[in-house]
């Protein structure tokens, strides 16, 4: 039984009891406990089931390396799966449930896999589910997916808030153990700006548990002096509960601060993701103890020796009355001494080494603990908890020499420096035979821009496992006993979470796996949520042995961020809900909302799609808006239209290069439609250009093209034609723009009054400055609908008021707002193209019959050369024509025009596709535009469009101008 000791516990406050539940069972702990400590104090040794065989799993470790004791934490909107109990701070009301079992933790049906273990070796899934091929997608994968995953995925939105924060420093120290504290102080002494991160809620690392003295002072006194020293410095920031998750190029470090994990619902952000830029990183991340591979090393009650020590010293938790210690190094003797001092029994220390003479072993002997050198564990007894061990000789094959009853086993297979952060950006490692571990190679660190070392490791992370500076000798012990037969090796767990055993790695090697990266994926070793923090070194040692190779030759798998899992919530930060992404609003946005507009996204803008009235479908609303615009007058919020001022002595020349047509000859006061292509000749944007004065033009772009085209202009001006005297300014958002469209448009403007908008003074394709209804404005007489139309730009700060004024003035003339869908229908009825509908990046203006907008006289324009290439100049290209369905129906969006025969893939041949298709409320029938091979020469032909349901729609080829071919309506 694990239990709480009557005395001790440096981190707990016995005056502050807290209650929590595990699988609904009420338990008691103290403030300062980790959840793991709280569970052990309540004798909850069984905490979960393993992934594949559903083996009983207990707490193994005391820190972030814990592979087993993962729980679902919280519930409903605060449910978080896969939370490590060892790093979860206990708080009053904490609710945890165990994972990966059904129907209950104690009685789990999935454990049947355990008895079938011999039938589920390494690569089981690959071997079993490969045939028949189609079964993978439809049968095997869904079943495996359902069985996969440890925790429950939350089904509700997260109740908590998260945020990011940026920080900058000269030296970032990761880990606040003795080495990290000393490094931070040393850096601070030079005047550097220092940030010190510590993943635990307290400073000190392992020293308070493992060391009596630091620099000749009692450890606790040394720590509090150091803490006070750093706190007093302006140039040092210490952040507890903050785990450096990843190191990236140029001194960029991501760190996850658990701000309110332990105080849920207090309104603070749950996590804060720090995005730190530092000149140098010092990792003082310590070392992680390795398990030993003996049969039954996964039974609850088998723990790392250091963890047993942590639980006893920090939380006054006993793993059981009798603990057998098994080790290959001296550090585990401390555990024996700690337990003994706490009044618990250590029946034996089994040391794989033949000769043991260090100070700690001597102290253990002196304390009366039985030390068996050259011995090992043959197997652990017990099911859901340890009941004893069978002892054997390490040198032998596992013949049992003795059986010892115990409740816990404390094991130490040595220590692996935490080199993860050092390795994230390519720091290289050396194998150290002295401590049987990979250590950073100071000659091959990850580099800064200037070739200096970006990351430096200190303390145990650098292989300096002892504060004394004298490296302990840790001989390699990868299998226990060394000659263990297969029967024992089948029970030696490497990866507890993913159920990878010594026998699996050996099988993979026999099957031809030589690369450690391939073996990892084949066996799933180190692929669990703990990313092999305990298992990797043991696993690759087994692999090296099986391959007859040395560990350095086999190498490690790649260390990738994050060091420990970072939740999606922390990564998303503030980017949720209303501020998930920027939403661009025009000055009239609120008026549209009040009018009940149904919005659609256009880039990051939200534009009214239509303004439905009570009882109307969106389709009916669009039809009403179109008809009203054609018969009365419609109002469109066109503010999103791109507006770029281009000015300078060379502006005309510049625009002649950008547009396919000629803009330099445009007279002041007039407007001209223009097309822009990329260098390949493909149509990129279109819009109306207005000549403002002798050296100033205003270029309208598409709504989504404004920033892109402005960037495109600056690109050419800054990188290619840097000696041309041209300035540009993107003034898109300076103006609210309202299109007043329809037969009554002029009457509406005349009601507002203030300037002459008559046909004579302001003819089609001209603009004028003035005032309307007292608003300063610029009026463009342009039309995207074929109607009498004015687009009026007013300063954005007056946009909402001007929209209201237009609405008011339009009441007498039947004015209604219309949305983007109405705009589309109106333009399609007139055969006007839309960038993004008629174009898709593979269409040139000539495909769309826009040859009239391409200057034949100009020597050059962007795209000219591209368009002359044989494929683009080919007469066989699909070209734009109009279509009328024979039955009046609407061609489905995205439909292809089928041709005879099939292609090499057995698909029907095609000869064209639809680009715009609408029901025209004006013509009361379906109309469409599309690209058709040899289209313009096939007027009157009947072609067939495919449909989603199967079958085809027949349509007659015609010109694209469905309405008012002579343009009489817009020219009044």
């Amino acid at each position: 039984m694990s239990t709480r000791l009557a005395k001790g516990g440096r981190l707990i406050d016995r005056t502050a009891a807290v209650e929590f539940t595990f699988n609904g069972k009420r338990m008691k702990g103290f403030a300062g406990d980790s959840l793991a400590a709280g569970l052990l104090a309540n004798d909850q040794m069984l905490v979960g089931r393993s992934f594949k065989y559903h083996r009983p799993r207990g707490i193994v470790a005391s820190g972030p390396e814990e592979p087993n004791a993962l729980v679902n934490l919280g519930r409903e909107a605060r449910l978080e799966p896969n939370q490590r109990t060892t790093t979860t701070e206990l708080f009053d009301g904490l609710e945890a449930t165990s994972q990966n079992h059904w129907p209950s933790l104690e009685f789990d049906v999935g454990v049947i896999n355990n008895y079938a273990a011999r039938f589920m070796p390494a690569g089981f899934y690959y071997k079993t589910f490969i045939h028949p091929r189609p079964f993978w997608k439809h049968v095997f994968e869904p079943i495996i997916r359902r069985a996969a995953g440890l925790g429950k995925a939350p089904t509700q939105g997260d109740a908590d808030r998260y945020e990011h924060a940026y920080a900058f420093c000269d030296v970032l120290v990761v880990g606040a153990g003795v080495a990290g504290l000393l490094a931070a102080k040393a850096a601070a002494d030079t005047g550097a700006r220092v940030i010190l991160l510590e993943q635990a809620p307290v400073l000190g690392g392992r020293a308070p548990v493992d060391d009596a003295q630091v620099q000749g002072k009692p450890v606790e006194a040394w720590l509090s002096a150091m803490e006070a020293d750093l706190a007093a410095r302006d140039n040092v920031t210490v952040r507890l509960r903050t785990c450096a998750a990843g190191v990236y190029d140029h001194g960029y470090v991501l760190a996850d601060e658990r701000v309110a994990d332990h105080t849920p619902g207090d309104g603070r952000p749950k996590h804060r993701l720090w995005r730190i830029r530092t000149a140098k990183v010092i990792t003082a991340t310590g070392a992680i103890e390795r398990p030993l591979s003996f049969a039954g090393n996964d039974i609850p009650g088998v723990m790392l020796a250091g963890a047993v020590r942590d639980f006893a010293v920090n939380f006054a938790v006993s793993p059981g009355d009798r603990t057998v210690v098994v080790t290959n190094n001296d550090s585990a003797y401390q555990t024996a001494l700690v337990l003994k001092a706490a009044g618990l029994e250590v029946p034996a220390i089994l040391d794989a080494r033949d000769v043991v003479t260090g100070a700690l072993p001597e102290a253990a002997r002196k304390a009366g603990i039985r030390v068996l050198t050259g011995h090992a564990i043959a197997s652990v007894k017990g099911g859901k908890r340890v009941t004893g061990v069978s002892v054997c000789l390490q040198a032998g094959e596992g013949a049992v020499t003795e059986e010892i009853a115990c409740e816990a086993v404390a094991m130490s297979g040595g220590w692996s420096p935490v080199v993860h952060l050092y390795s994230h950006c390519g720091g290289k490692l050396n194998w150290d035979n002295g401590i049987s571990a990979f250590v950073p190679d100071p000659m091959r660190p990850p580099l800064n821009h200037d070739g200096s070392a970006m990351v430096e490791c200190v303390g145990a992370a650098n292989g300096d496992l002892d504060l004394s500076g004298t490296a302990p000798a840790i001989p390699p012990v990868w299998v226990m006993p060394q000659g263990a037969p297969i029967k024992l090796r089948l029970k030696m767990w490497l990866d507890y979470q993913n159920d990878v055993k010594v026998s699996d790695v050996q099988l993979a090697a026999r099957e031809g796996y030589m690369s450690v990266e391939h073996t990892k994926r084949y066996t799933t070793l180190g692929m669990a949520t703990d990313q092999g923090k305990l298992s990797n070194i043991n696993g690759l040692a087994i692999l090296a042995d099986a391959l007859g190779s040395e560990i350095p030759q086999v190498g490690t798998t790649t260390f990738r961020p994050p060091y420990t899992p970072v939740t999606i919530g922390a990564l998303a930060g503030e980017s949720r809900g209303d501020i998930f992404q920027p939403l661009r609003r025009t000055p009239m946005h609120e008026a549209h909302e009040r009018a009940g507009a149904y919005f659609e996204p256009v880039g990051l803008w939200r534009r009214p799609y239509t303004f439905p009235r009570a009882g109307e479908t969106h389709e009916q609303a669009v039809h009403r808006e179109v008809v009203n615009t054609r018969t009365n007058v419609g109002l469109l919020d066109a503010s999103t239209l791109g507006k770029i001022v281009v000015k300078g002595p060379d502006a005309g020349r510049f625009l002649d290069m950008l547009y396919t047509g000629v803009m330099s000859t445009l007279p002041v006061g007039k407007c001209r439609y223009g097309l822009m292509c990329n260098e390949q000749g493909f149509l990129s944007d279109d819009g109306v250009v207005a000549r403002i004065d002798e050296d100033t033009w205003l270029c309208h772009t598409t709504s989504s093209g404004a920033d892109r085209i402005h960037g495109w202009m600056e690109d050419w001006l800054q990188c290619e034609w840097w000696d041309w005297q041209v300035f540009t300014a993107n003034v898109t958002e300076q103006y609210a723009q309202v299109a007043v469209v329809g037969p009554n448009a002029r009457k509406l403007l005349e009601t507002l009054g203030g300037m002459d908008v008559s046909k004579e003074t302001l003819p089609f394709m001209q603009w004028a400055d003035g005032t309307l209804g007292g608003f300063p404005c610029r009026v463009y007489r342009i039309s995207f609908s074929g109607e009498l139309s004015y687009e009026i730009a007013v300063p954005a700060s007056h946009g909402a008021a001007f929209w209201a004024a237009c609405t008011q003035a339009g009441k007498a003339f039947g004015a209604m707002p219309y949305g983007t869908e109405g705009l589309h229908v109106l333009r399609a009825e007139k055969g006007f193209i839309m960038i993004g509908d008629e174009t898709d990046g593979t269409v040139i203006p000539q495909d769309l019959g826009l040859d009239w907008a391409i200057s034949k006289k100009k020597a050059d324009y962007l795209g000219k050369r591209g368009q002359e290439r044989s494929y683009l100049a080919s007469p066989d290209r699909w070209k734009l024509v109009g279509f009328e369905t024979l039955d009046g129906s609407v061609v489905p969006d995205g439909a292809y025009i089928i041709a005879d025969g099939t292609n090499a893939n057995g698909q029907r041949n095609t000869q064209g596709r639809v680009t715009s298709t609408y029901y025209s409320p004006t013509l009361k029938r379906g109309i469409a535009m599309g690209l058709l091979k040899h289209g313009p020469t096939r007027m009157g032909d009947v072609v067939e469009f495919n449909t989603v349901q199967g079958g085809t729609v027949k349509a007659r080829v015609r010109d694209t101008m469905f309405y008012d071919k002579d343009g009489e309506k817009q020219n009044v």
Partner: protein
Amino acid sequence: MSDPVSALNGASFTGFATIREIGPLGMISLRHKGGAALTKAIKAAVGTKVPAQRRIEIKGEMACGWMSPDEYLLILPYAKVGATMAALAKALAGEHHLAADVSDARAVFRVEGAKAAEVLAKLSPVDFAKLERGELRRSRAAQVAAAMWAQDGGFTVVCFRSVAGYVMGLLIHSAQPGSELA
């Protein structure tokens, strides 16, 4: 004519720092390659010298910020923009330049309080501890472009008008009581 209305009509929020949308504020984007005429024109327009790279010169309610090697931002009362545009046109006649009224294209926020920098440090990759007096940063606030500088014991933040609501949302999120960084 109605009064000009800023993007959020002066919205405000008080958390561990105070957020206020201010404006409308007069802003003119002035592009020019530099020289005596520019120096004179800026002096006449806002009363400041030409700012050095990454600096903003502030004089009372007027200012001139360096935006790029050939772009300056003039800040002045909204009502003075028209006259100033005319004066610039006259002063720079014959010089290659572009002056654009961008007063309505922007939203302007003030972030104030002892911990104002902490609000912005959650949104912008800016080292506020090293931000000098009179330094103007063209950076970003989360996903959108933003310019900012320290002024009058707080910070002025400028973004595009269309995303004013988004930026206000960011600032409110970041200034929540209890989420102070230090």
